[in-house]
């Protein structure tokens, strides 16, 4: 199986979908002539031409609104945000318009839009460029949110997102763009709402999403080698719809849970996951649920401090040992 980067996997997903369905178009700032701010769409303008791969002005509210309108008329736009942090200036379009139109039209109008782009801290770009809005967006009924952690999932989730008839927001991660992994050439999708056990274990369940999965897998290695602890890592992949069954199944196996995410802790995704577990698997818990999140402060600009602000393997190991006490 070919080994390609997360970036290439995303590009492959979009290329295959552009080929498969002429209604699929890419739009965003510099996606065409500049090949994408992070080169995710590199070469696609050349291959598919300016009608399918379209540069937009620097106006998120404008071009996201354009994409939503187009999607309501049958186009399947894949919109790039240079950073998900910039989604905040298009919040009304993203949440109010895209999220509600199917409901408010009584099911007459679909909004099959994909909005994608990086949503992560850890790159020393400061407080306003480092947001991770998956929890904020997923709290709105009508909106689907996915956070791929690996190249395989990036391709499969992107293709599933493009084929879905509702707005699906794909949160990528600039730090993962160069990560390599095995990705099949052939057509496949990773269904929305299906979590994945990335590592099996007996003693502790770590639930994570996005890059926190990678961090958790590193921590699981350390826990196994240095502490003899067998850790299961569940990758949510989809924040909404949320795969409750896979999470609960793992909790029933290990009886101890650590939740890891790069969000800020307050009202984070894992606040919801913790609620889910105590509500549906209370009698399975042998210890309180713990969380590792980003430290609760605006994203720190100092690189060395920011490295500590995000969950890292050391913090995950330390917290895991507390759950295992």
């Amino acid at each position, binding site marked *: 199986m070919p080994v390609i980067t997360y970036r290439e996997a995303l590009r492959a997903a979009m290329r295959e979908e552009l080929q498969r369905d002429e209604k699929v178009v890419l739009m965003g700032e510099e996606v065409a002539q500049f090949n994408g701010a992070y080169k995710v769409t590199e070469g696609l303008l050349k291959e598919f031409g300016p009608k399918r791969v379209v540069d937009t002005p620097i106006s998120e509210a404008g071009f996201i609104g354009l994409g939503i309108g187009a999607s309501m008329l049958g186009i399947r736009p894949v919109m790039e945000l240079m950073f998900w942090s910039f989604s905040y200036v298009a919040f009304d379009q993203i949440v109010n318009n895209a999220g509600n139109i199917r409901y408010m039209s009584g099911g007459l109008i679909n909004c099959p839009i994909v909005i994608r782009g990086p949503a992560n801290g850890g790159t020393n770009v400061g407080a306003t460029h480092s947001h991770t809005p998956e929890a904020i967006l997923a709290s709105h009924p009508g909106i689907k949110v996915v956070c791929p952690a690996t190249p395989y999932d990036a391709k499969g989730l992107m293709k599933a997102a493009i084929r879905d008839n509702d707005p699906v927001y794909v949160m990528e991660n600039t730090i993962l763009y160069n990560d390599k992994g095995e990705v099949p050439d052939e057509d496949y999708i990773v269904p929305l709402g299906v979590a994945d056990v990335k590592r099996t274990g007996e003693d502790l369940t770590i639930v994570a999403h996005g890059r926190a999965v990678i961090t958790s897998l590193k921590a699981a290695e350390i826990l196994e080698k240095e502490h003899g602890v067998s850790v299961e890592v569940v990758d949510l992949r989809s924040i909404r719809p949320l795969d409750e069954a896979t999470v609960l199944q793992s909790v029933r196996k290990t*009886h101890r849970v650590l939740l890891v995410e790069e969000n800020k802790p307050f009202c984070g995704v894992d606040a919801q996951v913790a609620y889910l577990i105590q509500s549906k698997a209370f*009698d*399975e*818990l*042998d*210890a309180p649920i713990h969380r590792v999140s980003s430290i609760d402060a605006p994203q720190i600009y100092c690189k060395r401090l920011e490295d500590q602000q995000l969950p890292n393997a050391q913090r995950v190991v330390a917290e895991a040992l507390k759950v295992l006490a």
Partner: protein
Amino acid sequence: MAEIIDMPKLSDTMSVGTLIKWNVKEGQTVAFGDILGEVETDKATMELSCTVPGTILKIYAPGGSQLPVGAPICAIGKSGEIAPDPAAPAPKAAATSTPPIAESTGVACVPPAPAATSSGASAPRTSSDERVKASPYAKRMAEKAALNIAALSGTGPGGRILGRDVNAAAQAPAAAPVAVAPAGPLNVTVPAPADGKGIQPDADIPVGGMRQTIARRLLESKVTVPHFYLEVEVDAAPLLAMRESLNKRLAETGGADAVKLSVNDFILKGSAEALRRVPAVNASWAGTSIRAHGAVHLSFGVALEDGLVTPVIRDAQAKSLKEIAVEAKGLISKARAKKLTPNEMSGSTFTVTNLGMYGVTGFYGIINVPNAAILSVGATIKKPVVDASDRIVIGQRMVIGLSGDHRVVDGATAAQFLQALKLVLEDPTLMLI
């Protein structure tokens, strides 16, 4: 908005209830306070009164069904409203239900504080944290393995009992704390009578809530409480003489409603007085401490056709012989009618049982947890005794046994209590002061 009415928890120890009958039908309008039906708990039959006025939309559990506490039994709402689907499990047929799993030992049963006006035998002490700290998973495992979780020691943070602790206990049967209830039906194989008739037909007799509670609580007591036994013989002649004279006077003055004092009333009053003199016996084992009780809440056994209940006389330390006699009589008739409320059967600090009326000369009861001791009263019988001047005379003797919880009281303390009781019973005028 329709409301689902659940099987209420009507006593401390109730885990299932039998819905004996419904007084209402679906579609019937009910008002606050209406009696919807009757529920048999492990101790008594109680009326189920209506707390939500409206129309009975749906009866989920037919009369005769046995349901766990919290299971939906009916829905009340506006006429014409659709009854909601209950989320809880469907009722089980009474005969096939499994016995309730025992909860922790009685350490959590806290007798009420003495009434404000009473002068307690000893000051109530605040005990340390008596709640069993265990993870939900450990609790569930213990329940499955029928282990008494309160008897385990925890290796988790702050002594929390964890799954591994239950596992360790379950896998080391020799060292493990005793199982407090059999996990399922026991296989009883006995050959049928050779003559084909026998003294009664071979049969599996379904047991009700009361029998299950007796089985559970007494097994729990006998296997978790270290019993020890003392016995004392009491000269009952002065007591019998005083009883006769008092009853005569009471009959003369009281007419038809006259109170008649029983021997047991004297024993109850005497026990309260003896506990005042040796309050250390009026206490409970609370896991990590001993809880002293200020009030004497006296429980006494009442035999019923199909079991036994133990109603409680509250604040016996502050009640006269007559008051105790009247209250005991009332509780006995309520017990026989199965109308005792859970409150009337809980919170005791000491228990008296009496088999004297059957001619039993002496015995030892099983401690009624969380009491520290139980008094077992035998029959008063005439027999030769050596009197103070070394002559052999006809004595009226009563043998009283005491079963004590050795965690709470030692032999010497229990002996002092029996000494005090003997003193009061042999000089019953002491009961008057």
